[in-house]
């Protein structure tokens, strides 16, 4: 099921460039995910963790804690965990699981950093919105750069973070880590192109254990 899902994604994003290239890029990514021994063990842990997350969400949304409503929640969570435990924790080998744990623990810190960045970004765009002459104060560019991040989840995190921060929107990311970004200003674009000193990328690499 996981393979079918991933292939579907690669077909839609890279479909026009030829299936062959998309396939090899996908396999390279998958190898990176699977770890040294190549097994996708730990599906029971993934199942239990998915079940616990689903159950917690059920409790928050339902607000009823009597036996009837809780048993409904258990049944629903079991069904969801059974069908989709390989999506949320797609590769938890024993090594990977500790990394997943560290990533989740590091996320609040990253989120705080992101909030500060989002705040700066919003003040920047807000000033532009009320500028006397908007067309003079912006200078849009379309730039491409290659990231040093390897895993797909890290790239998605970077892509969404770029979209949330000053004057930049991620247009496209491909499997080789090439980002296409629409920037509202040339200065903003230059900050992204210096990949070695890009603070956001360094933080994400640390978060996903790639640094």
């Amino acid at each position, binding site marked *: 099921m996981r393979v079918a899902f991933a292939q579907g994604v690669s077909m839609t994003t890279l479909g026009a460039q030829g299936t062959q290239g998309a396939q090899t890029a996908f396999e390279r990514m998958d190898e990176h995910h699977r770890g040294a021994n190549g097994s996708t063990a730990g599906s029971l842990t993934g199942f239990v963790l998915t079940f616990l997350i689903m159950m917690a969400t059920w409790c928050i949304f339902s607000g009823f804690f009597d036996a009837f409503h809780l048993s409904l929640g258990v049944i629903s969570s079991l069904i969801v965990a059974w069908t989709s435990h390989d999506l949320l924790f797609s590769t938890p080998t024993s090594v990977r699981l500790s990394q997943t744990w560290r990533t989740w623990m590091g996320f609040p810190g990253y989120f705080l950093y992101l909030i500060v960045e*989002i*705040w700066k970004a*919003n003040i920047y*765009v*807000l000033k532009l*919105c009320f500028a006397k002459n908007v067309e003079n104060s*912006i200078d*849009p560019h379309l730039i491409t750069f290659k990231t040093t991040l390897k895993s797909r989840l890290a790239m998605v995190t970077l892509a969404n973070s770029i979209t949330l921060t000053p004057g930049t*929107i991620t247009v496209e990311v491909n499997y080789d880590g090439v980002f296409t970004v629409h920037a509202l200003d040339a200065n903003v674009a230059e900050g992204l192109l210096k990949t070695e000193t890009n603070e956001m990328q360094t933080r994400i690499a640390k978060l996903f254990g790639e640094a």
Partner: protein
Amino acid sequence: MEQIITIVCIALNVLGLVFYTGGTVGIIRFPDFYARLHAAGKLDSLGALMMLAGCAIYELQHFNLATALTALKLMLIIVFVFLASPTATHAIVDAGLASRYDFWSKRKVTSAPADDLTQEEH
């Protein structure tokens, strides 16, 4: 104490509204499709964060299970907005570039870069 919390909530909500207003003004004033999405995608997410955080703090001033659950639900909305908003913005920009819609630039109207769609044409 209660008054301070109310003032904080009102301040957060008003600030959120300022961001929403800025986003709306930006959508109207920015010169092209892509620049408008900068205003629409970013200002709305922070506006939603501030207003929902204000509501959550207001709920939590009388702390019990019911208000805690409501506050948690509001937090979940924030999480969803922060995942969905950049993804939706990206999808719209990508659609624009895929149909090779030109973007506004200072010097001239620049063509979107030739991508895989160009090959199909020849």
